């Protein structure tokens, strides 16, 4: 089963709906058996069931499933030094940035339009600008309305936690089973450097007092969610010199209180964003600094490494954003939900995923046996992909590279590196290639579906090998073979 009936690549866009339907109807294994077979060994079956289609909660799912955010809750009850509430730009991609705010009615129209066109859609999130729990009426109105049309869509929200304890029971009733809390500190002294003020119980609080309240409410909210079995992800913004070391402490606190995942996000800061940090020259962390902190946190609360820090109105797979295709202007006044594309896609994915998992486990076995023979080593691999767990993007078209680390323990997804497109309509630009090489700092190997001779040579000069020899293969299978070539005694002997 190495060749899928149709590649997931062809499903991204445009969608060949007839091919999808044929594949879906062509027999083979059923959704439930194949889907569950992709479960990682170290995960409880009930939890896997909750996260297997959620791109933000499962690294494995993010190759297949898409999320969309709707900006319906713009009011906020705290001020963060990395946020400027006036900022808006269609070309910016980062949390809290949005091109149009929506009323709950407009949001429902948009969600249905997206569900009809994007078969990968599995999750609807409310993630700013503003706070979903503080601007609660709009959050609730949106969720209550959409489940009437699309009952199987997963609902999730992101909050700063201050108003969270007031709504936990309603979240249960509404069947929201994923909540993200942004927790940047567990020490109010550090909090005072991040949060200038909060609005709580009808007044504004500042300084350490404000952060003490916020901290207590965040911990209470997390504990309440854990007691009720709602999966909670913690987002922490890594701010060099302010909370970078402290995040080790944050990780311990949230692990103790039952957080499912901890996501360390690098501060995004530039003067033109108009944020306090941007204007005062506070820098964000470099990619290797972020990775060093994440590596230190291994063994604590499970880390999320595939976050793309997406816009608050993002649509699509995590590495892409199709939000601009679905602005209100482009959406008809009347829309009705057609589940056929989403259903057909799920059938195909269920099969493809089982296949990918077995390719992955074969590759991991290869690596482990090589490591036993030769001691092994580690490889940091950057992959150009459009999704589906395959090497299926041209080097020059990649807007990001997914980074995998192969060590004697196996293959792990460790993050991504965003880059400027190198290829501009057939002509590579030397300036942007230099930028890409800089962003690939520390990488040993680049895997892509196609690369030109010139960029390949320039990468080689920088000590990075690039190859398109594994075009359209599963990512882990290719890494396994490369690992065998680099560290293996004899490939055949090692595999056998």
């Amino acid at each position: 089963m190495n060749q899928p009936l149709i590649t997931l690549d062809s499903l991204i866009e445009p969608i060949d709906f007839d091919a999808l339907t044929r594949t879906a109807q062509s027999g083979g294994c059923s959704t439930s058996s194949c889907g569950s077979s992709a479960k990682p060994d170290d995960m409880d079956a009930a939890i896997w069931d909750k996260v297997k289609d959620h791109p933000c909660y499962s690294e494995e799912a993010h190759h297949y499933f898409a999320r969309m955010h709707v900006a319906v809750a713009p009011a906020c009850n705290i001020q963060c030094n990395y946020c400027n509430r006036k900022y808006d730009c269609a070309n910016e991609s980062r949390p809290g940035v949005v091109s149009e705010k929506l009323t709950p009615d407009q949001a429902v129209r948009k969600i249905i339009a997206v569900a009809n066109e994007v078969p990968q859609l599995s999750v609807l999130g409310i993630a700013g600008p503003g706070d979903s729990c503080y601007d609660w009426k709009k959050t609730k109105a949106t969720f209550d309305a959409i489940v009437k049309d699309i009952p199987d869509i997963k609902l999730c929200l992101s909050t700063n936690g201050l108003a969270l304890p007031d709504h936990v029971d309603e979240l249960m009733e509404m069947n929201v089973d994923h909540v993200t809390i942004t927790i940047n500190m567990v020490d109010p002294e550090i909090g005072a450097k991040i949060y200038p003020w909060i609005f709580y119980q009808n007044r504004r609080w500042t300084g350490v007092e404000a952060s003490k309240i916020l901290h207590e409410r965040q911990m209470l909210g997390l504990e309440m969610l854990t007691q009720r079995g709602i999966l909670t992800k913690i987002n922490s913004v890594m701010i060099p010199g302010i909370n970078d070391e402290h995040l080790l402490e944050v990780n311990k606190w949230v692990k103790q209180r039952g957080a499912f995942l901890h996501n360390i996000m690098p501060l995004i800061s530039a003067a033109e964003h108009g944020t306090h940090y941007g204007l005062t020259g506070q820098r964000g962390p470099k990619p290797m600094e972020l990775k060093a902190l994440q590596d230190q946190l291994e063994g604590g609360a499970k880390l999320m490494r595939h976050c793309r820090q997406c816009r608050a109105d993002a649509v699509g797979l995590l590495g892409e954003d199709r939000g601009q295709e679905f602005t209100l202007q482009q959406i008809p006044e009347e829309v009705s939900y057609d589940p056929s594309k989403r259903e057909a896609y799920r059938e195909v994915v269920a099969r493809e995923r089982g296949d990918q998992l077995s390719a992955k486990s074969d590759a991991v076995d290869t690596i482990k046996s090589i490591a036993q023979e030769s001691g092994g080593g580690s490889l940091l691999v950057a992959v150009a992909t459009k999704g589906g767990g395959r090497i299926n993007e041209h080097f020059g078209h990649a807007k990001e590279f997914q980074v995998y680390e192969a060590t004697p323990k196996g293959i792990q997804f460790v993050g991504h590196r965003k880059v400027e497109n190198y290829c501009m309509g057939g002509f590579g630009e030397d300036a942007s290639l230099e930028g890409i090489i800089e962003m690939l700092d520390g990488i040993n190997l680049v895997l892509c579906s196609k690369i030109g001779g010139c960029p390949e040579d320039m990468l080689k000069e920088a000590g990075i090998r690039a190859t398109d020899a594994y075009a359209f293969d599963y990512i882990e299978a290719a890494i396994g073979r490369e690992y065998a070539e680099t560290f293996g005694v004899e490939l055949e002997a090692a595999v056998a």
Partner: protein
Amino acid sequence: MAFKIVVSQCTVCGACEFECPSGAIKFKGDTYVIDAKKCTECEGSFDTQQCNAVCPVPNTCIKAAA
């Protein structure tokens, strides 16, 4: 005795609308407006004006000139 919103600075987040104890703030056209007849400057309700305390932009919910 009333507050007003400086339209050019307003982010249209709407926090002031639901914090206002007098129901004096409404969305009109493309921005929020304080009804001077209803605004009490929160006297008798809270120590500080709620719209000003929650507004994310400094000097945007301010005392209207008499």
